[in-house]
């Protein structure tokens, strides 16, 4: 079987459109967990995914969803690979992904820390998170952890609404 660049693009496009199971307004491409899609010489689609967090329970679901979508599109040989390195960072959420998060009331992450382990800081840090509903910068964190590993809980002091924030990691 001869594969063409067009076939690869089609397979990639299909995999890219799979929604995230926990943030369904985002595709796996928006979230940055779909690292690569290639079509090999023998017609196997190899899709590479990386987990957001080690314990992310959605990972198995993502693998199954990508494989099912590709098979539904006629690719009989599908292989899903897990890529652990480099580890996922919230910086990989695309501009489109960030816009969609904000549209759904979830504040997108700021830039992730770089260059190895972050030292422990105990003094209160003023973290500028903008309310995704009213745009006010006057917000406060209510919990570092929320309904999924990747988010924290915040509230807006201006419009009084609670909201979620995707943590930078």
């Amino acid at each position, binding site marked *: 079987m001869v594969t063409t660049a067009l076939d690869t693009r089609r397979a990639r496009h299909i995999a890219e459109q799979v929604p995230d199971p926990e943030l369904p307004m985002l595709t796996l491409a928006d979230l940055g967990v779909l690292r690569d899609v290639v079509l090999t010489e023998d017609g196997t689609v190899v899709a590479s995914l990386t987990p957001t967090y080690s314990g992310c329970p959605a990972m198995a679901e993502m693998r199954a969803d990508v494989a099912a979508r590709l098979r539904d599109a006629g690719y009989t040989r599908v292989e899903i690979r897990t890529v652990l390195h480099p580890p996922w960072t919230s910086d990989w959420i695309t501009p489109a992904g960030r816009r969609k998060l904000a549209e759904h009331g979830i504040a997108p992450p700021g830039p992730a820390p770089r260059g190895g382990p972050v030292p422990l800081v105990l003094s209160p840090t003023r973290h500028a998170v903008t309310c995704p509903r009213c745009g006010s910068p006057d917000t406060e964190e*209510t919990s570092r952890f929320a309904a999924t590993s990747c988010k924290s809980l915040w509230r807006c002091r201006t419009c009084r609404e609670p909201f979620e924030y995707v943590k930078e990691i």
Partner: protein
Amino acid sequence: MSDDHVYMTLAEGHEDDTRWAYGTGFEDPLHGVDTTVPEGVDAGELADVCVALADDALVSAQRLAEWTTRAPELEEEVALANIGLDLLGQARLLYSRAGQVDGTGRGEDAYAYFRDADDFRNVRLAELPNGDFAFSTVRLLVLSSWRLAQFAHLVAHPDPVLSAIAAKGVKELTYHRQYAAEWVVRLGDGTAESHRRTRKALEQVAAYFGELFTAYDVRDEVAAVLCQVTGAAGLPMPVYRPLPGAGRAGDHTEHLAPLLAELQSVARAHPEATW
């Protein structure tokens, strides 16, 4: 998929059997990762390191999960459960790596569910009962600082899989340590009662320091963090004492076996179950 009835949706056959967190046929979390052991790496030693770090994480995750429905506030319950979930994820990856390299080909379930207390290699600090919230947060501070320091070193490990697991874990553990440190400061610098309890917790935890600093040279790094936190919390720096025996050699307190009995009960009652 029909969503007319929740049960029907749940019972619907799932092609890859990957949907559920327990049951044989559960997908290997290292699925599709290159499993070759690099030249010059002793596979037995690598497996031992993975199992020890996985056991610390699994036992800690089980203790953290016990706070669910019992934490002082909903936010703390969610935080502790999330931290436990991260550790459980690290344990799964490490057990899977151990099974690939120790020559047995065992899956993660074999390590988590079908070994007895004597075979576990976690440090004893991880298995002690939760006590009050002060004890749990002080212990979390010590264990997360210790684990973070070890993982930061393991990023340079010649095994690329262990290195990648560590690199991922460093990011997660940074959040765990931050959470625990803020609580220890809040409690130590809080009321007379919270200060008294946190001080007592620190003494109880310090009695188990002895076995933390045998592998990897991370004692100074952990001590620096504890010094920073106790200083901000108005607490005395705990005294290091040697401790006979080692969890890493299979020596455990009487608290590990009941913890495992609960953790392993379903898997052992239905060893071949799939659902």
